[in-house]
């Protein structure tokens, strides 16, 4: 018997009991809107055509890129325009105050009133933004606690796609504003910068058939293994492995504990990349295969265990310290690290001031078995920002106008202000109009406003020699291996009882890597997964598959 059938009966009787009291009014309202519940199944999302709730795509051409996009790769600009244009006609804010919860994977900047960057931007947009910045590595846990009490939910909540909490369908419905009536179709024309964001990115923001989120346009190739090109050049070691064995040999060459240098951080993301482990599901002969059941997952785990056993992983990474991973890479204690594509820029930016010779490069794409690499595309909107539900339409429109401001594309005055602060205070420009952050800028300018939404992603940081060219050509090059995952851009809200289903694997991945568990224990874990709800989960997803 499915224990989840009992609650529904209990809920009915409870409702009739409570119907007399005033407290039941929101309760009934919550029940009435059908598709919100996780039990609603595919009909919830399928009843509404996703394309009818997302905004029209109206591209804006401000500056033509030097490296145009190839199959969705990130375009690059080698120079800044002579004149920055204004993309927003009027000041977007009306003097209201807003709180926003955002992540950050680098040093947290000073808050108001000590942060002159935020003071300047707040004045410019005529809105008082207060950011609650949380370490990105601990974001998911903080988020659970914040969302659990409605009164603690800020006006804007940024949620990374990989930390969407369980029962998010309910959260969206009860906590956040439905943006469909404001943005769907041609409504978007009121916000031209938001209309400049691709339909793929918007599609990711549709939950249960309604548009809830503001997208954060992201690099389509998001998982990369980086190496310190400056260090390997000094060591005279070439980094061009063509299979897993060569990668291991390279790692052994790079490791020298006596010199306080190890080859890598925890390479789990990298191992999954080499062996083409899907994010969630794989389609084999028309059947859904979960990532943990896949052969690729097993191979990646075995290789991961080999790396740890070979002693090429930094001891602090072995001890599970991920917070310092980037720091170890920047300081040269490790030479290889997996990271997001965006990490290229943020690490370079962090390292460059202290080490102008700093040069990180992606390890050229290769497959673990030496064949053709398979790289699953990352989600076109890697994070979302949700707006707290409000009955105040004017306030909501103000929030959307502000989002429109934050989405100002490259080459605009707004984008310059958001990325580099004020000229003469936070950045200086050279004769080619290229901005360089001043000391104040380095301390105070951090991604905050542009978590809420940002323009289509481009590489334009010509301050770092060869970065734009390297980045844009690298990504254009790997797009030939890019594959759409099953359910690409589709937001499927899983029933909550499946929330902890993958938990044993997270522990097992760490245990197998560190030799505390044997790879044979994977079979038992898969068996448990199947009987504890994995098969039901597969059926749940298969219904969405039939719809496609």
């Amino acid at each position, binding site marked *: 018997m499915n224990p989840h059938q009992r609650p529904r009966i209990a809920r009915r009787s409870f409702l009739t009991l409570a119907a007399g009291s005033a407290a039941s009014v929101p309760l009934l309202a919550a029940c009435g809107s059908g598709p919100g519940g996780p039990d609603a199944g595919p009909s919830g999302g399928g009843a509404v055509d996703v394309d009818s709730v997302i905004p029209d795509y109206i591209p804006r051409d401000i500056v033509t890129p030097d490296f145009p996009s190839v199959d969705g790769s990130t375009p690059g600009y080698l120079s800044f325009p002579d004149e920055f244009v204004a993309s927003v006609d009027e000041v977007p804010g009306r003097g209201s105050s807003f709180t926003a919860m955002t992540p950050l994977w680098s040093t947290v900047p000073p808050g108001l009133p000590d942060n002159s960057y935020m003071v300047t931007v707040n004045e410019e947009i005529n809105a008082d933004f207060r950011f609650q910045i949380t370490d990105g590595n601990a974001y998911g846990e903080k988020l659970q606690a914040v969302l659990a009490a409605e009164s603690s939910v800020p006006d804007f909540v940024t949620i990374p796609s990989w930390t969407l909490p369980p029962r998010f369908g309910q959260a969206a419905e009860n906590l956040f504003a439905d943006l469909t009536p404001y943005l769907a179709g041609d409504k978007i024309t009121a916000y031209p910068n938001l209309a400049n964001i691709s339909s793929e990115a918007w599609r990711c923001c549709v939950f249960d058939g309604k548009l809830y989120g503001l997208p954060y346009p992201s690099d389509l190739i998001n998982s990369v293994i980086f190496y310190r090109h400056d260090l390997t050049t000094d060591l005279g070691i070439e980094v061009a492995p063509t299979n897993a064995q060569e990668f291991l040999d390279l790692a052994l060459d790079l490791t020298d*504990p006596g010199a306080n240098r190890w080859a890598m951080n925890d390479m789990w993301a990298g191992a999954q990349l080499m062996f083409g482990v899907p994010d969630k599901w794989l389609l084999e002969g028309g059947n859904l295969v979960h990532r943990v059941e896949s052969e690729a997952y097993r191979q990646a785990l075995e290789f991961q265990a080999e790396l740890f056993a070979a002693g090429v992983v930094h001891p602090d990474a072995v001890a599970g310290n991920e917070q310092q991973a980037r720091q170890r890479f920047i300081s040269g204690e490790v030479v290889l690290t997996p990271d997001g594509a965006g990490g290229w820029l943020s690490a370079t930016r962090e390292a460059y001031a202290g080490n102008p010779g700093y040069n990180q490069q992606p390890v050229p794409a290769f497959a673990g078995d030496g064949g053709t690499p398979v790289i699953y595309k990352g989600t076109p909107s890697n994070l979302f920002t949700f707006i707290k539900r409000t009955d105040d339409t004017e306030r909501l429109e103000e929030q959307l106008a502000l989002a429109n401001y934050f989405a100002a594309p490259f080459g605009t005055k707004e984008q310059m202000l958001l990325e580099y602060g004020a000229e003469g205070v936070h950045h200086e420009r050279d004769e080619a109009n290229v901005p360089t952050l001043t000391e104040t800028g380095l301390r105070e300018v951090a991604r905050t406003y542009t978590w809420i939404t940002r323009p289509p992603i481009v590489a334009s940081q010509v301050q770092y020699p060869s970065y734009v060219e390297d980045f844009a050509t690298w990504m254009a090059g790997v797009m030939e291996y890019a594959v759409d995952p099953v359910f690409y851009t589709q937001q499927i809200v899983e029933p909550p009882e499946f929330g902890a289903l993958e938990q044993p694997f997270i522990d097992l991945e760490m245990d197998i890597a560190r030799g505390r568990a044997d790879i044979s224990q994977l079979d038992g874990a898969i068996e448990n997964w199947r009987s504890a709800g994995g098969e039901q989960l597969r059926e749940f997803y298969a219904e969405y598959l039939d719809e496609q």
Partner: protein
Amino acid sequence: MTAAPQAARRRERAAAPAPQVPTSPRRKRPMRARLREDYPLLLMCLPVVILLAVFMYAPMLGNVIAWMDYSPYVGILGSDFVGWWNFQRVVADPRFWHAVQNTLIITGFQLVFFFPVPIAMAILLNSVLTKRVRTAIQSIVYLPHFFSWVIVVSIFQQILGGAGLVNQFLRSRGLEAVEIMTNPDTFLLLITSQQVWKDAGWGMIVFLAALSTVDRSQYEAAAVDGAGAWRRIWHVTLPALRPVIILLLILRLGDALTVGFEQLILQRDAVGAGAAEVLDTFVYYSGIVYGDWSYAAAAGLIKGTVSLILVLGANKIAHVFGEAGVYQR
């Protein structure tokens, strides 16, 4: 002190005011009289009562979610009752029992290897005669108590970790590095020594206070009777400490299922869930991280109930052996 004379004394006390009470409104008068007499004491209790009510008893009502399929997004009113379903899931979950087992192992180990350390230290320090040396030692061993676990674990990591001082030294001598922070087999030793380093000095305070009440002449008398140092400890010092030791032991038993949440969660990834998953981390992961709040509440309730039984049981045993225990009947 045995139970019998106490009970007798209580009877006496209860009987004492009776003769003074006039006959007619039998119940009201003594109450009012007592209020008039004791109101300063009651007022003094009030802040604590309010504190307990607001931060302990009121949140306890939230435990009702253990019988629900609770979702924070619809609230307690909107969630469904599911009876004992969550408890059934907890009891059927091997990960829960694994956490219980780890918890008990850690508690048992620390009872034997941590609990006596402050006692021994107190006795040792008490025998140091120079007051200045004694105060200096006291300050030094108290200090680590005021470090948070994050700092303690970092210090251990910096010194004993894979890239820490000890291993750097070993490597520079061409020796094999030792795995201390990431070895699940020696994890018990590691966390216990961390605890000794952090809290043994602090735990000493109570025992030192108890020792200061011992009449010096008892030692002199014992020495005159020819008792050596060991016999003086055995016959004078330890009996003086006994009520305190028993009190703390009972309190410790009540906490038996609570073993350093912060300390363990900080090091869980380093040694894996196999060695470091205890009840508190289990509740945290299933509740906060995976959002199964009801399930976590049920697991927490089971833990609380068992702890209560342990305290009551231990107290009972203390009474049987004629000790005061935590409270008296």
